[in-house]
């Protein structure tokens, strides 16, 4: 347990080595450092887990590395905190992370900036680990921002193309909006509870806050806004599809497994505050549900393979928010873990396909790849099965648990359950649409599969893991509040399994048998276009925020306050010209002014004499 600081420390050391050794390390040495640091961190996590699971060991472990901020009554320490929740997150981050690094070492082999890539990846994992292991909200915020910066660096990794730069900045600024709300929530929390230390918040929150009072509600909403920003949920979700501009391993690691789940982790970690604000929990559920449905529909008609997976990630995280909202806390983390596995699998198989087709990402140009790319094909099938939650796979266990829990909710129970099942149905359609379009149908293009020991083993491991993961039991039981007990009626489970199968059938008919082509008719076109643009959020935000700000900035480029002094200068010059006319050298003009002055004075004297 004492080597806990090594887990975030190793990737950080890896980052510094790679940065300082810029240009002097060979490619294989860079790979060794890059992948090695994460792999060792994963091993240490296992070692710590053994300690954790050993009987009689304390369920929580807190260590303070050094007193970070001490000012007056504010005591913020640079400390690590380990409990069931952070341990499960550690499994996800280091486990899936190391597999992705292993795969990335092969995927990015031809790229000139190989070392820079692994430096950023290591920094990212270090920041994510810091976020997960932080014992107070300020340190969590440090990890939170660090993760945001690394996602900016990695999305804009191929910086030559300005579009990537724009996507990176868009991601960073939109998440930064969420972070600002999170920061204001922090300030309010500190003002109310006087401390930012996580364990003590969990204790103080129930005592200090009255359930439903506006203080906890405000804090919970601000924390929710931060989580929404980072996990790309409804209002602040526009950056995730554009984030696909980064290399595929980046999308796999950051935009599927780890960073986007940070929001879920934050809500789970500060559940003490959320429990005091029930209507905010309801809002979380609603946000989850709406994101689930909207991104589901949008994914239906995307043409880029990575954008489909991006929207599917958004909808699966919507599921996790939905689970948190309905009070299924442990199930949501369980779904987080299973989703990390199969979504990373899907992204990496997509990566192999893209690499095989020389960076071709448009699924309309692919087809019939199941014979040329057997391994990616079977891994994709397993991944899609988990995504759709077919019975034996891990996806089934996590999604079923969430749907059952949603049924128990007193007021909105059945409605939530119905929304969730509808979401599952749409997920089935779009994921198998992707499968059929890419792997079935006519062979349009000649792929040549990248051989190499970095490509297949990680896929196979992940595939087996996502099949087996259903039976894992995460130690989050005692940390998070217990989810609602009780079993929903039998017919709900039958429906929950039947609908996805129905979806697969529909997808088969439409995309393999090419039936019901009517969907492509004109008046459907406008709806499909609307769905394609993600319900028009991008355009709305551009008109609402982007153009006014840029035009205001351009108009007031050299600021008007600067105009004041120049105005003063012009005024004095004008007065100077005016008075210089009076001295024109004409003697007789002077006598005339003399005479008129005399008149004025006399007139004044006479007028006053009268009084």
């Amino acid at each position, binding site marked *: 347990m004492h080597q806990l600081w090594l887990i975030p420390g190793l990737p950080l050391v890896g980052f510094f080595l790679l940065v300082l050794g810029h240009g002097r390390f060979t490619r294989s040495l860079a790979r060794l450092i890059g992948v090695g640091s994460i792999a060792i961190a994963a091993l240490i996590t296992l070692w710590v887990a053994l300690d954790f699971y050993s009987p009689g060991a304390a369920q929580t472990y807190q260590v303070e590395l050094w007193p970070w901020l001490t000012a007056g009554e504010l005591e913020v320490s640079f400390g690590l905190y380990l409990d069931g929740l952070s341990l499960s997150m550690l499994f996800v981050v280091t486990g899936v992370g190391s597999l992705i690094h292993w795969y990335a070492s092969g995927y990015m082999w031809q790229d000139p900036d190989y070392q820079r890539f692994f430096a950023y990846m290591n920094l990212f994992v270090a920041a994510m680990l810091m976020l997960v292991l932080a014992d107070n909200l300020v340190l969590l915020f440090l990890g939170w921002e660090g993760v945001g910066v690394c996602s900016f660096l990695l999305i804009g990794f191929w910086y030559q193309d300005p579009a990537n730069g724009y996507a990176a900045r868009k991601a960073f600024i939109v998440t930064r909006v969420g972070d600002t709300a999170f920061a204001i929530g922090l300030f309010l929390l500190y003002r109310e509870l006087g401390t930012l230390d996580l364990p003590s918040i969990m204790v103080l929150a129930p005592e200090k806050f009255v359930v439903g009072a506006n203080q906890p509600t405000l804090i919970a909403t601000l924390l929710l806004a931060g989580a929404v920003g980072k996990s790309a949920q409804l209002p602040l979700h526009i950056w995730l599809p554009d984030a696909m501009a980064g290399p595929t391993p980046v999308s796999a690691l950051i935009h599927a497994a780890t960073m986007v789940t940070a929001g879920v982790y934050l809500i789970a970690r500060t559940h003490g505050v959320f429990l005091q604000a029930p209507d905010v929990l309801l809002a979380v559920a609603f946000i989850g549900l709406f994101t689930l449905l909207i991104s589901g529909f949008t994914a239906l008609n995307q043409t880029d393979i990575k954008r489909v997976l991006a929207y599917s990630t958004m909808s699966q995280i919507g599921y996790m928010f939905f689970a948190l909202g309905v009070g299924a806390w442990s199930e949501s983390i369980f779904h987080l873990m299973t989703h990390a596995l199969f979504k990373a699998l899907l992204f990496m198989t997509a990566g192999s396909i893209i690499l095989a087709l020389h960076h071709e990402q448009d699924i309309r140009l692919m087809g019939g790849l199941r014979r040329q790319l057997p391994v990616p094909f079977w891994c994709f099938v397993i991944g899609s099965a988990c995504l759709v939650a077919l019975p034996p796979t891990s996806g089934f266990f996590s999604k079923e648990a969430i749907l059952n829990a949603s049924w128990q909710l007193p007021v909105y129970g059945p409605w939530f359950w119905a929304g969730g099942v509808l979401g599952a149905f749409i997920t089935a359609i779009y994921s198998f649409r992707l499968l059929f379009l890419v792997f079935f149908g006519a062979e349009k293009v000649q792929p040549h599969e990248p051989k190499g020991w970095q490509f297949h083993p990680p896929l196979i491991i992940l595939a087996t893991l996502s099949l087996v993961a259903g039976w894992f039991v995460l130690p989050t039981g005692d940390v998070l509040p217990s989810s609602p007990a009780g079993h929903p009626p039998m017919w709900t489970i039958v429906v929950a399994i039947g609908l996805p199968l129905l979806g697969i059938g529909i997808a088969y008919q439409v995309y393999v048998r090419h039936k019901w082509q009517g969907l492509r008719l004109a008046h459907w076109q406008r709806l499909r276009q609307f769905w394609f643009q993600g319900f028009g959020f991008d355009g709305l935000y551009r008109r609402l925020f982007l153009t006014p700000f840029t035009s205001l900035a351009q108009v007031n480029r050299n600021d008007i306050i600067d105009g004041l002094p120049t105005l003063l200068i012009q005024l004095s010059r004008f007065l100077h010209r005016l008075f210089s006319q009076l001295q024109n050298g004409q003697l007789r003009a002077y006598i*005339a002014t003399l005479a008129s002055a005399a*008149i004025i004075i*006399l007139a004044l004297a006479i007028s006053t004499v009268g009084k």
Partner: protein
Amino acid sequence: MIWAYLYNIVFYASCGVTVVATLLMISRHNAVHALLYLIVSSLSLAIIFYLLGAAFAAALEVIVYAGAVMILFVFVVMMLNQGQRSAALEAAWLPARGWIMPSILASILLALLLLGMNSEHPLQPYGVHGVAVKDVGIALFGPYVLVVELASFLLLSGLIGAFHIARKMPSHMDQNTLDEAGNG
């Protein structure tokens, strides 16, 4: 009685002569005519002085003013005068329009002076007690007699200065201005 009547006529006659002479003096083109009119007006002024009981002042006016100052003027005019050409030049410099603005100004000033001088509430310094001239005179010739002397020295130096400026004229006069003055 006759004496009072005569006094009346002479007084107003000389006032009339002074005013008319000054008017003519201003409007003459020829410098010499203007000077002569000025002499006439100063003489009639001397008469008025006398009638007002200031015989000494009248004498001085005639001797110093009409005598010395005007003669000086005539000398200078004679020296500078370019004859007909300058008269024509004068005409050019005196457009009829030129008269309007100054005469307006002057008439306003005159009206104000007259208004100020009527007897009911004569124009006297408003709310301040001026020093009476008598005390000034006593002071002037009492302790400050030295100052009076100095003033006279000042006037003397002024005169010498003027003399010095005028003296250089012959040596610098180049040939053409001399001829021009000659045939004036």
